């Protein structure tokens, strides 16, 4: 319990520190102005979200191999946290884009594959609600999760190589090359902070699965008696 409280406190402190850094330490960007400060939060959340989905993928693989419940719990936990992250990415992106590019959305490789990623893991969660038996649910959703994760790089490259690049704005990543050193430090600090915060969310959400399992066990014990 104390470890959880420690993690929660550290995560909150880091988040506040990052917010301070984003607004008061990072210099204002020359061309875009203040709006560019969304970048630190947006891109860091995107990186953390993708890492979370990778952990989900690993959990799925481990479940199919070892069939231990804890890997199924890890999978669904990471899927939910990942979807929260990617939803934020998909919302903050257009908020940044409209003033800067004049458009909310464009179908370039990164945005499209992020959106498809989001759709795939929503489907993953939906699939889980439609299978009652826990063992089957765990196995089939793990298998779908594996296929979904394998698909994402294919989506990314298919759009990158075969969708005409309109004079489309280079998305956030383009700034990576030649980013001001202070901005770079602030950005990577944000990346660290978002990873820690997501770890905190994963721990808390995982406990929900464990508790659900405890309730099931107790209910079955009660029925036996």
């Amino acid at each position, binding site marked *: 319990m104390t470890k959880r409280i420690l993690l929660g406190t550290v995560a909150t402190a880091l988040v506040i520190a990052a917010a301070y850094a984003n607004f008061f330490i990072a210099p204002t960007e020359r061309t875009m102005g203040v709006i560019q400060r969304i970048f630190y939060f947006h891109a860091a959340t995107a990186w953390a979200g993708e890492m979370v989905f990778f952990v989900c993928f690993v959990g799925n693989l481990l479940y199919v191999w070892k069939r231990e419940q804890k890997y199924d719990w890890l999978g669904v936990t990471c899927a939910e946290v990942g979807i929260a992250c990617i939803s934020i990415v998909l919302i903050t992106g257009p908020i940044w884009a409209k003033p800067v590019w004049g458009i909310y959305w464009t179908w370039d490789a990164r945005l499209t594959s992020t959106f498809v990623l989001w759709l795939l893991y929503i489907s993953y969660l939906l699939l889980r609600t439609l299978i009652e038996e826990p063992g089957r649910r765990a196995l089939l959703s793990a298998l779908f999760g594996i296929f*979904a994760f394998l698909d994402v790089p294919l989506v990314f490259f298919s759009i990158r190589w075969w969708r005409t690049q309109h004079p489309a704005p280079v998305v956030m990543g383009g700034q990576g090359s030649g980013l001001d050193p202070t901005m770079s430090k602030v950005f990577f600090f944000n990346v660290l902070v978002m990873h820690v915060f997501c770890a905190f969310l994963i721990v808390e959400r995982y406990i929900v699965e464990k508790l659900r399992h405890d309730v099931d066990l107790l209910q079955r014990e009660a029925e036996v008696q």
Partner: protein
Amino acid sequence: MSLLSNTSALLGKELRTEFRSRELLTTTSVFILIVLVLFSFATNPGTEEARQFAPGLLWLAILFASSLMFQSCFLREQVNDTLSSLRLAVSDPFAIFLAKLIANTLFLLLTEALMLPFFAIFYNITLWSQLPILWLVLLLGSAGIAVAGTAISAISAQARMRELLLPLLLLPLLTPILVVSATVTGGLLDRDPVVQWKGIAFLAVFDVVFLTALWIFGQYFLEE
């Protein structure tokens, strides 16, 4: 090789079952035709712009049709629990998948063959000159759809609301096929046709990736 003999035996069964009644082929063909007609109402097929959208619409129609076609793939094995018998009959469960996905690819290709003339007429497109390469693209694209579709069919057959679930799971997975097939087909059907070999290679890569994944994990889809 027992995988080969198991697969060919099962493939024979799949083909015989379908050609006895031909219900899947006929309904899917009619469905693609209806979708193409609806697209024609929604757009304006005569114009130059419509010709640009035509390859994308063709592949969309194929995708929608396939999400209907694959419904019965594993459902029909649940009716008399023939799946258990199949599992016992083969040494490698992958044979079941291989047979079904080859059959599904063939069925898709057959429906596409029936639809191409209508497509050419509606959208005023000449196909003859590029026909061999076009068939290669159709083959690789349909194979990709069939591999993913067969796997997802095995999943959705074991869940509730399977009619809605299958397209929900399948269509996002098939985005790369849609994008690349439509673009390559568009290049082929252009006034100055161009063959995009990189795209054709990409389709092959997609097929190999998912086929390999199905080979590794297939047995788990069919567990009791």
